[in-house]
């Protein structure tokens, strides 16, 4: 789930970038101030008093699920969730009560390349929120009791996910696409890997991987730099670096599908069949990004896209059909996904392949490209409207070293996207021969329609793992 939640954010920021013409030349994201704490954390800051709230974001490089110890996938995710479950000073219940009392939130979770810390509170409570955050980060207890509770909750959540084919298909796709690559590690873990974990193994991961010197943070909201600087030094600044040096945090190149890799997951009670198809995309910040964003907008990124038009608007086969690119430092992935009645999945996939082929071979029109440019530009401003979205943008841009003028440059590039560039992006990026395709549905109804697409691996949804 984390991977796809992150996708939504990336999409919001990458696929929706505004027009300089519409913005009258204003920089879409104000340049932040920079505060470097004594333990090495860089904090980017913007004061915004339009509402009395303050948002905090922090990304910790190398602490994501891509760096789970071998055979123990889900360690990063479990470690992150235990950060707020007790310290030397406060029990898990005391932390929860203190946060809830303020109406504040503090969440720690594992993405792929990094761990993510997010907090938000009324301005008057922000000092207390940061004090709790610093206490949690400095010394999570990882008690046996809390470890056991969280682990068994996760095992049961994995079972619950299998009752919802729309969620389950994404887990199956992640496993099928990435296989043994670190991005195949589920942040939730699997039943088998969770059984093998111990409180000590999780604690050990945290101690080595959650490091201030690998963290980048952002604060946006109703507070001044004069108030914030001493507050951060007294809280986050007291989080000590571990004695040893950082552990390796490079991610190997992403796998490239060879031929058609087809998986059917049998869920006998499903009334709809769900599919995800995926193929290679491009790395974060790659020069092809603007062309690809326009291309994806037209193919499957908005309501009137080809994909949604053919499947939903014209044929009423589905409630939604969408495609997206997701990018990391090491590479990216294109995915397209939809769902329909069990007896229509063959027709739906035929149309999908026709549309992919049409994009790659025939391409788009100049009018379509103009429409997609306008759409991306016009939908950009709301993506950076809130304190939390600005803070997330600062942290992300700093993490990927894209520069805080990235969106301004990106907008200018979007305005310059041509039909030729879009057609080239489609020819290069749309999956034709080499892809991974996962279907979750009732096999007895679905399989007869799927045979023509090739040889399918089959598994039952009740089988352990994904």
């Amino acid at each position, binding site marked *: 789930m984390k991977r796809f939640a992150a996708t939504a954010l990336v999409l919001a920021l990458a696929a929706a970038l*505004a027009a300089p013409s519409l913005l009258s030349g204003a920089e879409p994201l104000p340049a932040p101030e920079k505060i470097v704490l004594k333990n090495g954390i860089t904090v980017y800051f913007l004061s915004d008093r339009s509402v009395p709230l303050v948002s905090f974001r922090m990304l910790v490089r190398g602490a994501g699920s891509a760096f789970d110890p071998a055979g123990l996938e889900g360690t990063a995710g479990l470690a992150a969730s235990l950060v707020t479950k007790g310290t030397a000073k406060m029990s898990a219940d005391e932390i929860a009560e203190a946060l809830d009392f303020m109406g504040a939130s503090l969440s720690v979770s594992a993405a792929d390349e990094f761990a993510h810390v997010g907090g938000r509170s009324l301005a008057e409570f922000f000092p207390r929120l940061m004090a709790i955050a610093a206490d949690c980060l400095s010394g999570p207890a990882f008690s046996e009791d809390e470890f056991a509770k969280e682990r068994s909750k996760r095992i049961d959540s994995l079972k619950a996910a299998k009752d919802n084919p729309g969620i389950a298909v994404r887990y199956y796709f992640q496993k099928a696409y990435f296989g043994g690559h670190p991005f195949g590690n589920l942040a939730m873990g699997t039943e088998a890997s969770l059984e093998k974990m111990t409180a000590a193994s999780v604690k050990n991961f945290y101690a080595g991987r959650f490091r201030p010197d690998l963290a980048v943070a952002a604060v946006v909201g109703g507070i001044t730099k004069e108030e914030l600087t001493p507050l951060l030094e007294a809280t986050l600044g007291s989080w000590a670096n571990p004695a040893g040096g950082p552990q390796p945090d490079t991610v190997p190149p992403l796998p490239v599908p060879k031929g058609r890799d087809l998986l059917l997951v049998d869920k006998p009670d499903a009334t709809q069949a769900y599919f995800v198809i995926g193929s290679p995309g491009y790395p974060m910040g790659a020069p092809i990004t603007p062309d690809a964003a326009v291309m994806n907008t037209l193919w499957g990124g*908005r309501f009137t896209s080809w994909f949604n038009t053919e499947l939903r608007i014209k044929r009423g086969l589905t409630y939604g059909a969408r495609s997206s690119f997701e990018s990391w430092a090491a590479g990216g992935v294109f995915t397209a996904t939809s769902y329909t009645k069990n007896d229509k999945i063959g027709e739906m996939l035929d149309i999908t392949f026709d549309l992919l082929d049409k994009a790659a071979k025939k391409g788009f029109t100049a009018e379509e490209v103009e429409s997609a440019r306008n759409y991306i530009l016009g939908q950009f401003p709301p993506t950076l409207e809130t304190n939390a979205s600005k803070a997330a943008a600062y942290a992300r841009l700093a993490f990927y070293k894209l520069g805080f003028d990235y969106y301004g440059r990106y907008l200018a590039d979007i305005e310059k996207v041509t039909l030729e560039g879009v057609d080239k992006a489609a020819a290069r990026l749309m999956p034709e021969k080499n892809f991974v395709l996962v279907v979750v549905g009732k096999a007895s109804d679905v399989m007869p329609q799927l045979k023509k697409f090739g040889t399918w691996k089959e598994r039952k949804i009740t089988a352990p793992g994904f």
Partner: protein
Amino acid sequence: MRSRIPLRFLGLFVCLGALVLSLPAATFDKENVQVHQLANGLKVLLVEDHGIPNIALYTFFRVGSRNERPGLTGVSHFIEHMMFNGTADFGPGEFDRRMEFLGGSNNAYTGDDLTAYTDWFPAAALDTMLRMESDRMQGLIFEPKVFESERGVIASERRLSVENNNDAILYENVRATAIMAHPYHWDVIGWMSDILGWRRDEVIAYYHTYYSPNNAVLIMVGDFDPAPALSLIRKYYEPVKASPAPPPIVTVEPPQIGPKSVLVRKEAQVPSFLVAWHEPGAREADFLPLAVLTKPLLDGESSRLYRRLVREEQLAISVRGGNQETIDPFLFTISVKPRPGADLDRIEKVIEEELDKVKSEGITQRELEKALNITRTDFYQSLETIAGKANQLGSAEVILGDHTKLFTLMDSYSAVTLDSVREVARKIFQENNKTTGRLVPEGGAR
């Protein structure tokens, strides 16, 4: 609440639904809202806000599943979908194509009490957006082929969100068991046989009954100059004719006179558990103390029920619920995702024990403060965006009957006493007022 486009597909964080009753931010109060009413009855609320170069245009119609009848259940939501499918001036799909060409996007949602059309676009698209919004208020053509195609979309949405979702199936069963007479009996999506059976002439008659300027409120928040914006609104909306007032809802749900329960058997790895009590409507005095009680009972990991069910006894993966802001009395729900194999009787007993404590001892002063802090935080968050402001104003206007209640509610909210919270708990959480629902894996618990 059902939306036209799956929310996870939108690259926007849209504040839907939950109307938060709390203090206004200093930057947003009654004086910021210009109120106008056209001769045809259309109410217009304008808020100038130059934070981003965009506009949020929200049109609320006072129609939802509450206005439906057997055979036409789900039709409010269906019309919401059809609103994008063609008028005489703008053919099927033209609304979306033109809007997206100008950099705009939209969604729409249908609830028990209202239907809302939510447009987000760069300021330069205003003229076209007002032209198209006013055109479809009464101009839909319901082209038969498109009608049938959209019927299929809704059927798919129902299969996705109800039939393939165990919690939703249980919810539908519990509400239909708890509510006998009032149209809140059925869910916004409607029954599948109605979806497959809607007749075009009946749908058109329903549309003309409820889609009129005198049954709507238009809210615009964002980067515009109010005087010329109002002129544009007049230009496009004044020609739209008023309709006779829609018929009132006369059915009143009779008091429940004994506990009810419903059992659903379905293939599942994990059971579902839901319990509901009839609760007051959002305009009633008892609603606020109940809203306060929801926070210490259900909000966050420190809440009483989360602590007992998830943390201490480890009977559940999650617990959520609370009261719903509806015009007529609806249901206060507690929804539990049990651990596989958990004892559902024990879950029900723990909930009863916690409610008994509230009935005898009430909540603490600190819990009352916590409820106010959470409410205040949620409210400010909803005001961070032009879309959030538009949604709050529209919801208050339709559900509470007056948008200005948004700016005074915190006074009433702050006036909630510990005694009133205990009193409302005693009134609502009675055995005779309760409906319990269980979904168990086929063949019994395992």
